[in-house]
């Protein structure tokens, strides 16, 4: 085995290893998003779990695809998907959270403060009510 094929083989092994590591990490973050969705106590914390963990997991999977293919086509479409996901997922989560807060979805019992709700008793029980 000459030197050139050895270099090629090790480069391919490095590429496959990086792809595998990114795949496993991304799938683990997707699973953590599902666990948070099932286990979190109320709507607002579930939104955090779904948006942050799911988006990071999918971004890692897209990076795995980019590393695996390493062509211009795959790099452009993969990074387009990453940028689009990172731009739109917080917007969608914010729309859902704001709408459900306006409709009166209650937070968990252990919630410390609710800054959108002016007369929240958990604020006034610790401190004097803030005047705005």
């Amino acid at each position, binding site marked *: 085995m000459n030197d050139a094929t050895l270099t090629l083989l090790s480069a391919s092994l490095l590429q496959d290893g990086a792809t595998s590591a990114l795949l496993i990490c991304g799938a*683990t973050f997707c699973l953590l998003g599902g666990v948070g969705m099932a286990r979190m106590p109320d709507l607002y914390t579930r939104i955090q779990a779904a*948006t942050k963990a799911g988006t990071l997991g999918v971004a890692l999977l897209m990076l*795995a*695809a980019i590393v695996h293919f390493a062509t211009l086509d795959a790099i452009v479409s993969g990074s387009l998907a990453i940028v689009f996901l990172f731009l739109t997922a917080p917007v*969608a989560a914010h*729309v*859902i959270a704001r709408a459900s807060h306006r409709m*009166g979805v209650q937070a968990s019992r252990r919630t410390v403060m609710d800054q959108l709700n002016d007369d929240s008793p958990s604020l006034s029980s610790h401190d004097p009510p803030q005047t705005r």
Partner: protein
Amino acid sequence: MSDLLTISSWIAGVLMALGTLLGIFRIARGPGLADRIIALDLVGTIAIGASAIFAISTGEPVYLLMCVVLGLLLFVGTVAAGYYLLTTKGDNMMHDPKLSSSPIQSAPTPKARS
């Protein structure tokens, strides 16, 4: 495709299937409509990642374009559902009996806030 990639693709697929099952559990049993919308958003996000895994395991980079289109459709669907929540008056579907003894009272009736 090497053995390493095959094994890690299978492991990633199994993990994401478990995440999807947990999301479907929340869709089936979420106490309110917004929980179901968010769980559906999570399942759609996991589907985008699953199509990336499918692109790797078949060796076709065309499936990465499917991820972009799925992301677009998911965003439009979630924002449309949020707008529907915002413009619906009755809060019958938002009642959660488990949280009704919360010290934080229900939010005030929708005021005009900008």
